[in-house]
Protein backbone atom coordinates (compact mmCIF):
# COMPACT_ATOMS: atom_id res chain seq x y z
CA UNK A 1 0.00 0.00 0.00
CA UNK A 2 1.30 3.41 -0.90
CA UNK A 3 0.39 4.38 2.64
CA UNK A 4 4.01 3.85 3.60
CA UNK A 5 5.79 5.53 0.71
CA UNK A 6 7.27 8.96 1.06
CA UNK A 7 6.98 9.07 4.83
CA UNK A 8 10.01 10.71 6.30
CA UNK A 9 9.82 8.62 9.47
CA UNK A 10 10.27 5.53 7.33
CA UNK A 11 13.20 3.56 8.62
CA UNK A 12 13.14 0.95 5.93
CA UNK A 13 12.40 1.72 2.32
CA UNK A 14 11.42 -0.45 -0.55
CA UNK A 15 14.31 -1.10 -2.89
CA UNK A 16 13.01 0.28 -6.14
CA UNK A 17 16.25 0.17 -8.15
CA UNK A 18 16.11 -1.76 -11.39
CA UNK A 19 17.27 -5.30 -10.80
CA UNK A 20 19.99 -5.43 -13.45
CA UNK A 21 22.15 -2.74 -11.92
CA UNK A 22 24.98 -3.92 -9.72
CA UNK A 23 24.92 -0.99 -7.37
CA UNK A 24 22.22 0.63 -5.31
CA UNK A 25 22.05 3.84 -3.34
CA UNK A 26 21.07 3.39 0.29
CA UNK A 27 18.16 5.72 0.94
CA UNK A 28 19.21 6.15 4.53
CA UNK A 29 22.91 7.07 4.24
CA UNK A 30 23.10 7.88 0.53
CA UNK A 31 26.06 5.56 0.12
CA UNK A 32 26.45 3.62 -3.12
CA UNK A 33 26.63 -0.01 -2.12
CA UNK A 34 27.21 -3.21 -4.02
CA UNK A 35 23.87 -4.97 -4.36
CA UNK A 36 25.25 -8.43 -3.89
CA UNK A 37 26.78 -7.41 -0.60
CA UNK A 38 23.41 -6.04 0.54
CA UNK A 39 21.74 -9.31 -0.36
CA UNK A 40 24.37 -11.38 1.37
CA UNK A 41 23.92 -9.16 4.39
CA UNK A 42 20.16 -10.01 4.84
CA UNK A 43 19.19 -6.81 3.04
CA UNK A 44 20.89 -4.67 5.63
CA UNK A 45 22.95 -1.74 4.36
CA UNK A 46 26.63 -2.68 4.81
CA UNK A 47 27.48 0.97 5.23
CA UNK A 48 24.96 2.25 7.79
CA UNK A 49 23.02 -0.79 9.01
CA UNK A 50 19.68 0.36 7.56
CA UNK A 51 17.21 -2.52 7.08
CA UNK A 52 15.64 -2.97 3.67
CA UNK A 53 12.59 -5.13 3.06
CA UNK A 54 13.03 -8.84 2.72
CA UNK A 55 10.82 -10.65 0.26
CA UNK A 56 9.02 -13.67 1.68
CA UNK A 57 11.48 -15.97 -0.11
CA UNK A 58 14.50 -14.07 1.23
CA UNK A 59 13.08 -14.13 4.75
CA UNK A 60 12.42 -17.86 4.57
CA UNK A 61 15.95 -18.45 3.27
CA UNK A 62 17.37 -16.46 6.13
CA UNK A 63 15.50 -18.54 8.72
CA UNK A 64 15.11 -22.20 7.82
CA UNK A 65 17.66 -24.96 7.50
CA UNK A 66 18.90 -25.17 3.90
CA UNK A 67 16.73 -27.46 1.82
CA UNK A 68 14.19 -28.01 4.61
CA UNK A 69 11.44 -25.73 3.36
CA UNK A 70 8.40 -27.20 1.63
CA UNK A 71 6.04 -24.60 0.23
CA UNK A 72 2.41 -25.26 1.24
CA UNK A 73 1.01 -22.11 -0.36
CA UNK A 74 -1.73 -23.20 -2.68
CA UNK A 75 -2.11 -20.80 -5.59
CA UNK A 76 -5.44 -19.34 -4.68
CA UNK A 77 -6.47 -15.80 -5.59
CA UNK A 78 -9.35 -13.70 -4.45
CA UNK A 79 -12.31 -13.66 -6.81
CA UNK A 80 -12.75 -9.94 -6.09
CA UNK A 81 -16.20 -10.28 -4.49
CA UNK A 82 -16.84 -6.53 -4.48
CA UNK A 83 -15.62 -6.03 -8.08
CA UNK A 84 -13.68 -3.19 -6.49
CA UNK A 85 -12.48 -0.23 -8.51
CA UNK A 86 -10.73 2.81 -7.07
CA UNK A 87 -8.27 4.83 -9.12
CA UNK A 88 -7.51 1.43 -10.65
CA UNK A 89 -9.48 -1.85 -10.75
CA UNK A 90 -8.47 -4.19 -7.93
CA UNK A 91 -7.93 -6.98 -10.45
CA UNK A 92 -5.29 -4.89 -12.17
CA UNK A 93 -3.58 -4.07 -8.92
CA UNK A 94 -3.56 -7.77 -8.09
CA UNK A 95 -2.16 -8.71 -11.46
CA UNK A 96 0.62 -6.15 -11.15
CA UNK A 97 1.49 -7.39 -7.69
CA UNK A 98 1.48 -10.97 -8.92
CA UNK A 99 3.72 -10.14 -11.84
CA UNK A 100 6.10 -8.16 -9.65
CA UNK A 101 6.39 -10.84 -6.96
CA UNK A 102 5.49 -14.14 -8.67
CA UNK A 103 3.27 -14.72 -5.65
CA UNK A 104 -0.50 -15.24 -5.76
CA UNK A 105 -0.97 -13.06 -2.69
CA UNK A 106 0.97 -11.45 0.15
CA UNK A 107 1.97 -14.51 2.15
CA UNK A 108 3.95 -17.73 1.78
CA UNK A 109 3.36 -20.67 4.12
CA UNK A 110 5.23 -23.92 4.44
CA UNK A 111 6.89 -26.48 6.65
CA UNK A 112 10.53 -26.61 7.52
CA UNK A 113 13.04 -26.81 10.32
CA UNK A 114 15.13 -24.23 12.12
CA UNK A 115 18.27 -25.80 13.55
CA UNK A 116 16.45 -29.09 13.37
CA UNK A 117 13.31 -27.89 15.16
CA UNK A 118 10.26 -28.62 12.99
CA UNK A 119 7.79 -25.80 12.44
CA UNK A 120 5.11 -24.38 10.19
CA UNK A 121 6.13 -20.96 8.96
CA UNK A 122 4.08 -18.12 7.47
CA UNK A 123 5.86 -15.09 6.02
CA UNK A 124 4.17 -11.99 4.65
CA UNK A 125 5.55 -10.07 1.69
CA UNK A 126 5.16 -6.32 1.90
CA UNK A 127 5.71 -5.82 -1.83
CA UNK A 128 2.31 -7.38 -2.47
CA UNK A 129 -0.18 -4.51 -1.89
CA UNK A 130 1.50 -3.56 1.36
CA UNK A 131 1.27 -7.06 2.76
CA UNK A 132 -2.42 -6.40 3.33
CA UNK A 133 -4.72 -9.14 4.62
CA UNK A 134 -7.66 -10.18 2.49
CA UNK A 135 -9.44 -13.50 2.00
CA UNK A 136 -6.37 -15.27 0.66
CA UNK A 137 -3.94 -14.26 3.39
CA UNK A 138 -6.52 -15.07 6.08
CA UNK A 139 -7.05 -18.47 4.50
CA UNK A 140 -3.34 -19.25 4.33
CA UNK A 141 -2.77 -18.22 7.95
CA UNK A 142 -5.58 -20.56 8.99
CA UNK A 143 -4.25 -23.39 6.84
CA UNK A 144 -0.81 -22.91 8.35
CA UNK A 145 -2.23 -23.24 11.85
CA UNK A 146 -4.22 -26.29 10.77
CA UNK A 147 -1.06 -27.86 9.36
CA UNK A 148 0.69 -27.12 12.65
CA UNK A 149 -2.11 -28.91 14.50
CA UNK A 150 -2.17 -31.87 12.11
CA UNK A 151 1.60 -32.34 12.29
CA UNK A 152 2.05 -31.27 15.93
CA UNK A 153 4.49 -28.55 14.98
CA UNK A 154 5.07 -25.06 16.30
CA UNK A 155 3.69 -22.13 14.29
CA UNK A 156 5.76 -19.06 13.47
CA UNK A 157 4.27 -16.07 11.65
CA UNK A 158 6.47 -13.25 10.36
CA UNK A 159 4.25 -10.21 9.80
CA UNK A 160 4.88 -7.34 7.43
CA UNK A 161 1.54 -5.74 6.74
CA UNK A 162 -0.22 -2.42 6.65
CA UNK A 163 -3.45 -4.08 7.80
CA UNK A 164 -6.67 -5.19 6.18
CA UNK A 165 -6.94 -5.08 2.40
CA UNK A 166 -9.43 -2.32 1.75
CA UNK A 167 -10.37 -3.63 -1.70
CA UNK A 168 -12.05 -6.70 -0.23
CA UNK A 169 -14.17 -4.67 2.18
CA UNK A 170 -15.85 -6.62 4.95
CA UNK A 171 -14.32 -9.86 3.72
CA UNK A 172 -10.97 -8.41 4.78
CA UNK A 173 -12.16 -7.10 8.12
CA UNK A 174 -13.62 -10.49 8.93
CA UNK A 175 -10.28 -12.20 8.33
CA UNK A 176 -9.41 -10.81 11.75
CA UNK A 177 -12.26 -12.86 13.21
CA UNK A 178 -11.34 -15.86 11.11
CA UNK A 179 -7.66 -16.03 12.07
CA UNK A 180 -8.42 -15.37 15.74
CA UNK A 181 -11.00 -18.17 15.76
CA UNK A 182 -8.49 -20.69 14.40
CA UNK A 183 -5.72 -19.36 16.65
CA UNK A 184 -7.92 -20.27 19.61
CA UNK A 185 -8.02 -23.86 18.43
CA UNK A 186 -4.23 -23.90 18.08
CA UNK A 187 -4.00 -22.84 21.71
CA UNK A 188 -6.45 -25.55 22.75
CA UNK A 189 -4.28 -28.05 20.87
CA UNK A 190 -1.37 -26.99 23.07
CA UNK A 191 0.91 -25.88 20.26
CA UNK A 192 3.18 -22.86 20.53
CA UNK A 193 2.78 -19.80 18.32
CA UNK A 194 5.64 -17.33 17.97
CA UNK A 195 4.65 -14.07 16.32
CA UNK A 196 7.48 -12.09 14.73
CA UNK A 197 6.64 -8.47 14.04
CA UNK A 198 8.63 -6.61 11.43
CA UNK A 199 8.23 -3.36 9.55
CA UNK A 200 5.27 -2.80 9.58
CA UNK A 201 2.86 -4.82 11.72
CA UNK A 202 -0.18 -2.63 11.88
CA UNK A 203 -3.93 -2.19 11.49
CA UNK A 204 -6.08 -5.28 11.29
CA UNK A 205 -3.13 -7.67 11.36
CA UNK A 206 -1.75 -6.18 14.55
CA UNK A 207 -5.27 -6.08 16.04
CA UNK A 208 -5.76 -9.79 15.48
CA UNK A 209 -3.44 -12.70 14.78
CA UNK A 210 -0.06 -10.93 15.13
CA UNK A 211 -0.75 -9.84 18.72
CA UNK A 212 -1.90 -13.27 19.87
CA UNK A 213 1.40 -15.15 19.86
CA UNK A 214 2.54 -17.02 22.94
CA UNK A 215 5.76 -15.13 22.38
CA UNK A 216 5.97 -11.78 20.61
CA UNK A 217 9.29 -10.94 18.99
CA UNK A 218 9.97 -7.69 17.17
CA UNK A 219 12.67 -7.35 14.58
CA UNK A 220 14.84 -4.29 15.07
CA UNK A 221 13.42 -1.49 12.94
CA UNK A 222 9.87 -2.82 13.26
CA UNK A 223 6.79 -0.64 13.32
CA UNK A 224 4.09 -1.97 15.63
CA UNK A 225 0.72 -0.35 16.17
CA UNK A 226 -2.94 -0.16 15.28
CA UNK A 227 -3.61 3.35 13.99
CA UNK A 228 -0.75 4.88 12.04
CA UNK A 229 0.95 8.20 12.64
CA UNK A 230 -0.86 9.86 9.76
CA UNK A 231 -4.31 8.68 10.82
CA UNK A 232 -3.77 9.96 14.35
CA UNK A 233 -2.45 13.30 13.17
CA UNK A 234 -5.26 13.74 10.67
CA UNK A 235 -7.93 12.78 13.18
CA UNK A 236 -6.83 14.49 16.36
CA UNK A 237 -3.68 16.43 15.33
CA UNK A 238 -1.72 15.06 18.27
CA UNK A 239 2.03 15.47 18.72
CA UNK A 240 3.69 12.07 18.56
CA UNK A 241 7.14 11.13 19.84
CA UNK A 242 9.85 10.44 17.24
CA UNK A 243 10.15 6.79 18.21
CA UNK A 244 6.35 6.31 18.11
CA UNK A 245 5.40 2.69 17.34
CA UNK A 246 9.03 1.57 16.96
CA UNK A 247 10.21 -1.67 18.54
CA UNK A 248 11.71 0.34 21.40
CA UNK A 249 8.42 2.13 22.00
CA UNK A 250 6.63 -1.23 22.07
CA UNK A 251 9.20 -2.87 24.34
CA UNK A 252 9.19 0.02 26.83
CA UNK A 253 5.40 -0.21 27.10
CA UNK A 254 5.29 -3.93 27.64
CA UNK A 255 3.73 -4.74 24.28
CA UNK A 256 6.32 -7.30 23.14
CA UNK A 257 8.65 -9.81 24.74
CA UNK A 258 11.88 -9.28 22.89
CA UNK A 259 13.68 -7.27 20.21
CA UNK A 260 16.00 -9.11 17.87
CA UNK A 261 18.38 -8.05 15.12
CA UNK A 262 17.66 -9.52 11.73
CA UNK A 263 20.81 -11.60 11.63
CA UNK A 264 19.96 -13.09 15.03
CA UNK A 265 16.36 -14.02 14.30
CA UNK A 266 17.11 -17.57 13.20
CA UNK A 267 19.02 -18.41 16.37
CA UNK A 268 16.39 -16.62 18.44
CA UNK A 269 13.58 -18.74 17.00
CA UNK A 270 15.55 -21.95 17.52
CA UNK A 271 16.14 -20.92 21.12
CA UNK A 272 12.51 -20.01 21.79
CA UNK A 273 11.04 -23.07 20.08
CA UNK A 274 13.50 -25.30 21.90
CA UNK A 275 11.65 -24.69 25.15
CA UNK A 276 8.48 -26.13 23.68
CA UNK A 277 10.02 -29.24 22.16
CA UNK A 278 8.75 -31.34 25.06
CA UNK A 279 5.10 -30.25 24.88
CA UNK A 280 4.47 -31.86 21.52
Amino acid at each position, binding site marked *: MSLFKERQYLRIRVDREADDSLWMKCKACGELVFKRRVRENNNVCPSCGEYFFLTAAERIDSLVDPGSFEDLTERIVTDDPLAFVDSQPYRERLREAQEKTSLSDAIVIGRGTIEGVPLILGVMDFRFIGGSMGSVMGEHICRAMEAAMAERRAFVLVSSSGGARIQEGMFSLLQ*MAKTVTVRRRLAEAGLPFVSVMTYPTSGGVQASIASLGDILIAEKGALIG*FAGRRVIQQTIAQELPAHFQTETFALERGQIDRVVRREDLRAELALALGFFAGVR
Partner: protein
Amino acid sequence: MSDERTLDLLEAKIEELRQLNAVEGIDLSKEIARLEEKLQHLRRKLYENLNDWERVKLARHPKRPYSLDYLETVFEGFYELRGDRVTGDDRALLAGLARLDGRPVVVLAQQKGRTTEENKERFFGMPRPQGFRKARRAIELADRFRFPLISMIDTPGAYPGLEAEEQNVGATIAESLQAMAGVRVPTIAVVIGEGGSGGALAIGLADCIVMLENAIFSVITPEGAASILWKDKDKAKDAAAALQLTAERLLALGLIDGIVPEPLGGAHKDFGKTADALKTEIVRRLSELSALPANELLARRYARYRGIGRFVLAPIPTPDALPPAVDAARN
Protein backbone atom coordinates in the same frame (compact mmCIF):
# COMPACT_ATOMS: atom_id res chain seq x y z
CA MET B 1 -29.37 15.25 2.69
CA SER B 2 -30.39 18.80 1.97
CA ASP B 3 -33.92 17.69 1.12
CA GLU B 4 -34.47 16.40 4.60
CA ARG B 5 -34.79 19.99 5.78
CA THR B 6 -37.60 20.61 3.30
CA LEU B 7 -39.46 17.62 4.67
CA ASP B 8 -38.97 18.79 8.24
CA LEU B 9 -40.33 22.21 7.28
CA LEU B 10 -43.34 20.68 5.64
CA GLU B 11 -43.92 18.52 8.67
CA ALA B 12 -43.81 21.59 10.91
CA LYS B 13 -46.25 23.39 8.62
CA ILE B 14 -48.72 20.54 8.87
CA GLU B 15 -48.45 20.57 12.63
CA GLU B 16 -49.09 24.31 12.60
CA LEU B 17 -52.22 23.86 10.51
CA ARG B 18 -53.41 21.13 12.81
CA GLN B 19 -53.19 23.42 15.80
CA LEU B 20 -54.94 26.17 13.92
CA ASN B 21 -57.63 23.70 13.02
CA ALA B 22 -58.21 22.88 16.65
CA VAL B 23 -58.08 26.42 17.99
CA GLU B 24 -59.85 28.50 15.39
CA GLY B 25 -62.57 26.04 14.56
CA ILE B 26 -61.90 26.47 10.84
CA ASP B 27 -62.05 23.29 8.84
CA LEU B 28 -58.55 22.78 7.40
CA SER B 29 -58.72 18.99 7.36
CA LYS B 30 -58.78 18.80 3.57
CA GLU B 31 -55.73 21.02 3.33
CA ILE B 32 -53.96 18.96 5.98
CA ALA B 33 -54.74 15.68 4.29
CA ARG B 34 -53.45 17.01 0.99
CA LEU B 35 -50.20 18.17 2.55
CA GLU B 36 -49.75 14.92 4.42
CA GLU B 37 -50.11 12.99 1.23
CA LYS B 38 -47.55 15.22 -0.38
CA LEU B 39 -45.19 14.75 2.55
CA GLN B 40 -45.54 11.00 2.36
CA HIS B 41 -44.87 11.10 -1.36
CA LEU B 42 -41.77 13.27 -0.99
CA ARG B 43 -40.49 11.14 1.82
CA ARG B 44 -40.80 8.00 -0.22
CA LYS B 45 -39.08 9.68 -3.14
CA LEU B 46 -36.23 10.83 -0.94
CA TYR B 47 -35.65 7.70 1.11
CA GLU B 48 -36.61 4.78 -1.05
CA ASN B 49 -33.66 5.11 -3.37
CA LEU B 50 -30.90 6.21 -1.08
CA ASN B 51 -27.45 5.85 -2.54
CA ASP B 52 -24.73 4.38 -0.36
CA TRP B 53 -23.27 7.72 0.66
CA GLU B 54 -26.70 8.97 1.75
CA ARG B 55 -27.02 5.75 3.70
CA VAL B 56 -23.70 6.51 5.43
CA LYS B 57 -25.01 9.93 6.37
CA LEU B 58 -28.22 8.40 7.69
CA ALA B 59 -26.22 5.87 9.75
CA ARG B 60 -24.38 8.85 11.29
CA HIS B 61 -27.45 11.07 11.57
CA PRO B 62 -27.28 13.18 14.73
CA LYS B 63 -30.90 12.34 15.58
CA ARG B 64 -30.38 8.61 15.14
CA PRO B 65 -31.17 6.54 18.24
CA TYR B 66 -28.06 5.43 20.10
CA SER B 67 -27.36 2.36 22.22
CA LEU B 68 -28.66 3.88 25.45
CA ASP B 69 -32.00 4.59 23.77
CA TYR B 70 -32.33 0.89 22.93
CA LEU B 71 -31.03 -0.13 26.34
CA GLU B 72 -33.99 1.67 27.87
CA THR B 73 -36.60 0.22 25.54
CA VAL B 74 -35.50 -3.16 24.21
CA PHE B 75 -34.00 -4.26 27.53
CA GLU B 76 -35.17 -3.88 31.12
CA GLY B 77 -33.18 -2.80 34.13
CA PHE B 78 -29.78 -2.10 32.57
CA TYR B 79 -27.29 -2.51 35.39
CA GLU B 80 -24.05 -0.96 34.25
CA LEU B 81 -20.71 -2.47 35.14
CA ARG B 82 -17.92 0.04 34.79
CA GLY B 83 -14.17 0.05 34.50
CA ASP B 84 -11.46 -2.15 33.05
CA ARG B 85 -9.84 -2.76 36.47
CA VAL B 86 -6.57 -1.38 35.12
CA THR B 87 -6.62 2.26 34.09
CA GLY B 88 -10.12 3.56 33.71
CA ASP B 89 -13.64 3.40 32.38
CA ASP B 90 -14.44 3.98 28.74
CA ARG B 91 -17.70 5.86 28.21
CA ALA B 92 -17.76 4.97 24.50
CA LEU B 93 -18.12 1.26 25.17
CA LEU B 94 -20.57 0.35 27.90
CA ALA B 95 -21.04 -3.02 29.55
CA GLY B 96 -23.55 -4.40 31.98
CA LEU B 97 -26.29 -6.79 32.89
CA ALA B 98 -29.86 -6.38 31.73
CA ARG B 99 -32.97 -8.41 31.13
CA LEU B 100 -34.39 -9.25 27.77
CA ASP B 101 -37.98 -10.43 28.10
CA GLY B 102 -37.17 -11.19 31.70
CA ARG B 103 -34.05 -13.22 30.92
CA PRO B 104 -30.67 -12.00 32.25
CA VAL B 105 -28.17 -11.11 29.52
CA VAL B 106 -24.82 -9.35 29.28
CA VAL B 107 -24.87 -6.28 27.07
CA LEU B 108 -21.98 -4.54 25.33
CA ALA B 109 -22.89 -1.22 23.80
CA GLN B 110 -20.96 1.41 21.89
CA GLN B 111 -22.29 4.83 22.72
CA LYS B 112 -21.93 8.15 20.89
CA GLY B 113 -22.65 11.48 22.50
CA ARG B 114 -25.53 13.82 21.66
CA THR B 115 -23.95 17.05 22.81
CA THR B 116 -20.43 18.45 22.55
CA GLU B 117 -20.05 17.97 26.27
CA GLU B 118 -21.16 14.35 26.06
CA ASN B 119 -19.00 13.70 23.02
CA LYS B 120 -15.99 14.92 24.94
CA GLU B 121 -16.70 12.30 27.55
CA ARG B 122 -17.51 9.60 25.03
CA PHE B 123 -14.78 10.41 22.51
CA PHE B 124 -17.42 10.59 19.78
CA GLY B 125 -18.21 6.94 20.34
CA MET B 126 -14.65 5.77 19.66
CA PRO B 127 -13.61 3.13 22.21
CA ARG B 128 -10.16 3.08 23.76
CA PRO B 129 -8.18 0.17 25.25
CA GLN B 130 -10.07 0.68 28.51
CA GLY B 131 -13.28 -0.15 26.65
CA PHE B 132 -11.97 -3.25 24.94
CA ARG B 133 -10.52 -4.55 28.22
CA LYS B 134 -13.88 -3.96 29.86
CA ALA B 135 -15.58 -5.80 26.99
CA ARG B 136 -13.35 -8.79 27.55
CA ARG B 137 -14.21 -8.76 31.24
CA ALA B 138 -17.93 -8.70 30.44
CA ILE B 139 -17.56 -11.54 27.91
CA GLU B 140 -15.85 -13.64 30.57
CA LEU B 141 -18.67 -12.84 32.96
CA ALA B 142 -21.22 -14.01 30.39
CA ASP B 143 -19.27 -17.23 29.94
CA ARG B 144 -18.96 -17.90 33.66
CA PHE B 145 -22.67 -17.54 34.38
CA ARG B 146 -24.02 -18.63 31.00
CA PHE B 147 -25.69 -15.32 30.24
CA PRO B 148 -26.29 -14.73 26.54
CA LEU B 149 -24.27 -11.84 25.13
CA ILE B 150 -25.81 -9.03 23.09
CA SER B 151 -23.58 -6.39 21.44
CA MET B 152 -24.78 -3.11 20.05
CA ILE B 153 -22.34 -1.67 17.54
CA ASP B 154 -22.22 2.04 16.79
CA THR B 155 -18.77 3.54 16.39
CA PRO B 156 -16.68 5.33 13.77
CA GLY B 157 -13.82 3.08 14.94
CA ALA B 158 -11.35 2.68 17.77
CA TYR B 159 -9.99 6.00 19.04
CA PRO B 160 -6.74 6.85 17.26
CA GLY B 161 -4.36 8.48 19.70
CA LEU B 162 -1.03 8.29 21.46
CA GLU B 163 -2.45 6.97 24.75
CA ALA B 164 -4.44 4.30 22.95
CA GLU B 165 -1.33 3.10 21.15
CA GLU B 166 0.71 3.24 24.35
CA GLN B 167 -1.86 0.91 25.89
CA ASN B 168 -1.69 -1.37 22.85
CA VAL B 169 -5.20 -0.85 21.56
CA GLY B 170 -4.64 -3.39 18.78
CA ALA B 171 -3.92 -6.17 21.24
CA THR B 172 -6.97 -5.29 23.33
CA ILE B 173 -9.11 -5.62 20.19
CA ALA B 174 -7.46 -8.97 19.39
CA GLU B 175 -8.15 -10.21 22.91
CA SER B 176 -11.77 -9.13 22.84
CA LEU B 177 -12.14 -11.00 19.55
CA GLN B 178 -10.55 -14.08 21.03
CA ALA B 179 -12.85 -13.98 24.03
CA MET B 180 -15.87 -13.72 21.74
CA ALA B 181 -14.63 -16.64 19.65
CA GLY B 182 -14.68 -18.92 22.66
CA VAL B 183 -17.57 -17.73 24.85
CA ARG B 184 -19.87 -20.69 25.56
CA VAL B 185 -23.16 -18.80 25.26
CA PRO B 186 -25.26 -17.52 22.37
CA THR B 187 -23.97 -14.21 21.04
CA ILE B 188 -25.83 -11.67 18.93
CA ALA B 189 -24.35 -8.50 17.46
CA VAL B 190 -26.58 -5.70 16.24
CA VAL B 191 -25.19 -2.86 14.15
CA ILE B 192 -27.51 0.01 15.03
CA GLY B 193 -25.62 2.81 13.25
CA GLU B 194 -21.99 2.89 12.27
CA GLY B 195 -19.91 -0.28 12.25
CA GLY B 196 -16.44 1.19 11.93
CA SER B 197 -13.61 -1.25 11.31
CA GLY B 198 -11.71 -3.20 13.99
CA GLY B 199 -13.16 -1.13 16.83
CA ALA B 200 -16.63 -2.30 15.83
CA LEU B 201 -15.69 -5.88 15.03
CA ALA B 202 -14.03 -6.26 18.44
CA ILE B 203 -17.50 -6.88 19.93
CA GLY B 204 -19.00 -8.26 16.72
CA LEU B 205 -17.63 -11.79 16.40
CA ALA B 206 -21.05 -13.27 17.16
CA ASP B 207 -23.22 -16.27 16.29
CA CYS B 208 -25.63 -13.94 14.61
CA ILE B 209 -25.04 -10.48 13.15
CA VAL B 210 -28.02 -8.32 12.30
CA MET B 211 -28.07 -4.77 11.04
CA LEU B 212 -30.65 -2.04 11.14
CA GLU B 213 -31.75 -1.20 7.62
CA ASN B 214 -29.78 2.05 7.44
CA ALA B 215 -26.75 0.92 9.40
CA ILE B 216 -23.36 0.41 7.79
CA PHE B 217 -20.45 -1.93 8.51
CA SER B 218 -17.10 -1.33 6.86
CA VAL B 219 -13.42 -2.20 6.95
CA ILE B 220 -12.60 1.52 6.81
CA THR B 221 -14.56 4.77 6.70
CA PRO B 222 -15.39 5.94 3.16
CA GLU B 223 -13.32 9.05 3.93
CA GLY B 224 -10.34 6.92 4.93
CA ALA B 225 -10.60 4.74 1.84
CA ALA B 226 -10.92 7.83 -0.35
CA SER B 227 -7.78 9.38 1.05
CA ILE B 228 -5.72 6.17 0.84
CA LEU B 229 -6.91 4.69 -2.46
CA TRP B 230 -8.15 7.70 -4.41
CA LYS B 231 -5.72 10.12 -2.73
CA ASP B 232 -8.69 12.48 -2.63
CA LYS B 233 -10.87 12.98 0.42
CA ASP B 234 -13.73 14.23 -1.76
CA LYS B 235 -14.13 10.77 -3.26
CA ALA B 236 -15.83 9.46 -0.13
CA LYS B 237 -19.05 9.03 -2.06
CA ASP B 238 -17.36 6.75 -4.59
CA ALA B 239 -15.61 4.89 -1.80
CA ALA B 240 -18.90 4.35 0.02
CA ALA B 241 -20.34 2.67 -3.06
CA ALA B 242 -17.22 0.58 -3.74
CA LEU B 243 -16.92 -0.70 -0.15
CA GLN B 244 -20.38 -2.34 -0.17
CA LEU B 245 -21.03 -1.38 3.40
CA THR B 246 -24.83 -1.31 3.50
CA ALA B 247 -26.97 -3.88 5.29
CA GLU B 248 -28.57 -4.91 2.03
CA ARG B 249 -25.24 -5.59 0.29
CA LEU B 250 -23.71 -7.37 3.28
CA LEU B 251 -26.74 -9.65 3.50
CA ALA B 252 -26.43 -10.43 -0.21
CA LEU B 253 -22.73 -11.19 0.30
CA GLY B 254 -23.68 -13.63 3.04
CA LEU B 255 -21.75 -11.80 5.75
CA ILE B 256 -24.67 -10.91 8.01
CA ASP B 257 -27.79 -12.82 9.03
CA GLY B 258 -30.62 -10.34 8.89
CA ILE B 259 -31.88 -6.80 8.51
CA VAL B 260 -34.24 -5.02 10.88
CA PRO B 261 -36.49 -2.65 8.92
CA GLU B 262 -36.58 1.04 9.79
CA PRO B 263 -39.38 3.55 9.19
CA LEU B 264 -39.11 5.68 6.06
CA GLY B 265 -36.50 8.36 6.74
CA GLY B 266 -34.64 6.39 9.38
CA ALA B 267 -34.91 4.94 12.87
CA HIS B 268 -35.35 8.37 14.45
CA LYS B 269 -38.58 9.02 12.54
CA ASP B 270 -40.39 6.43 14.66
CA PHE B 271 -38.16 5.20 17.42
CA GLY B 272 -40.84 3.12 19.13
CA LYS B 273 -41.47 1.13 16.01
CA THR B 274 -37.75 0.58 15.36
CA ALA B 275 -37.14 -0.55 18.93
CA ASP B 276 -40.08 -2.95 18.77
CA ALA B 277 -38.82 -4.47 15.55
CA LEU B 278 -35.32 -4.80 16.97
CA LYS B 279 -36.56 -6.43 20.15
CA THR B 280 -38.65 -8.93 18.21
CA GLU B 281 -35.63 -9.81 16.09
CA ILE B 282 -33.22 -10.24 19.01
CA VAL B 283 -35.70 -12.31 21.03
CA ARG B 284 -36.40 -14.58 18.06
CA ARG B 285 -32.72 -15.06 17.22
CA LEU B 286 -31.82 -15.68 20.83
CA SER B 287 -34.47 -18.34 21.28
CA GLU B 288 -33.17 -20.11 18.15
CA LEU B 289 -29.57 -20.01 19.38
CA SER B 290 -30.52 -20.96 22.93
CA ALA B 291 -31.93 -24.24 21.65
CA LEU B 292 -28.42 -25.36 20.71
CA PRO B 293 -26.10 -27.06 23.19
CA ALA B 294 -22.91 -25.10 23.87
CA ASN B 295 -20.60 -27.43 21.95
CA GLU B 296 -22.75 -27.20 18.85
CA LEU B 297 -22.96 -23.44 19.20
CA LEU B 298 -19.15 -23.28 19.29
CA ALA B 299 -18.81 -25.67 16.36
CA ARG B 300 -21.17 -23.55 14.29
CA ARG B 301 -19.38 -20.36 15.24
CA TYR B 302 -16.07 -21.95 14.30
CA ALA B 303 -17.38 -23.11 10.94
CA ARG B 304 -18.91 -19.73 10.22
CA TYR B 305 -15.76 -17.70 10.76
CA ARG B 306 -13.36 -20.32 9.41
CA GLY B 307 -15.34 -20.24 6.18
CA ILE B 308 -15.27 -16.49 5.53
CA GLY B 309 -13.37 -15.56 2.41
CA ARG B 310 -13.72 -15.59 -1.35
CA PHE B 311 -11.03 -17.10 -3.56
CA VAL B 312 -10.51 -19.46 -6.45
CA LEU B 313 -7.68 -21.67 -7.60
CA ALA B 314 -5.44 -19.94 -10.11
CA PRO B 315 -2.58 -22.09 -11.38
CA ILE B 316 -0.36 -19.33 -12.76
CA PRO B 317 -0.64 -15.67 -11.87
CA THR B 318 -0.59 -14.37 -15.42
CA PRO B 319 -2.87 -11.66 -16.73
CA ASP B 320 -5.23 -14.12 -18.40
CA ALA B 321 -5.38 -16.62 -15.59
CA LEU B 322 -7.53 -14.38 -13.42
CA PRO B 323 -11.22 -15.28 -13.26
CA PRO B 324 -13.71 -12.99 -15.00
CA ALA B 325 -15.32 -10.24 -12.98
CA VAL B 326 -18.54 -11.94 -12.04
CA ASP B 327 -20.39 -11.27 -8.85
CA ALA B 328 -23.26 -13.71 -8.69
CA ALA B 329 -24.89 -11.98 -5.77
CA ARG B 330 -25.22 -8.77 -7.70
CA ASN B 331 -26.81 -10.11 -10.84
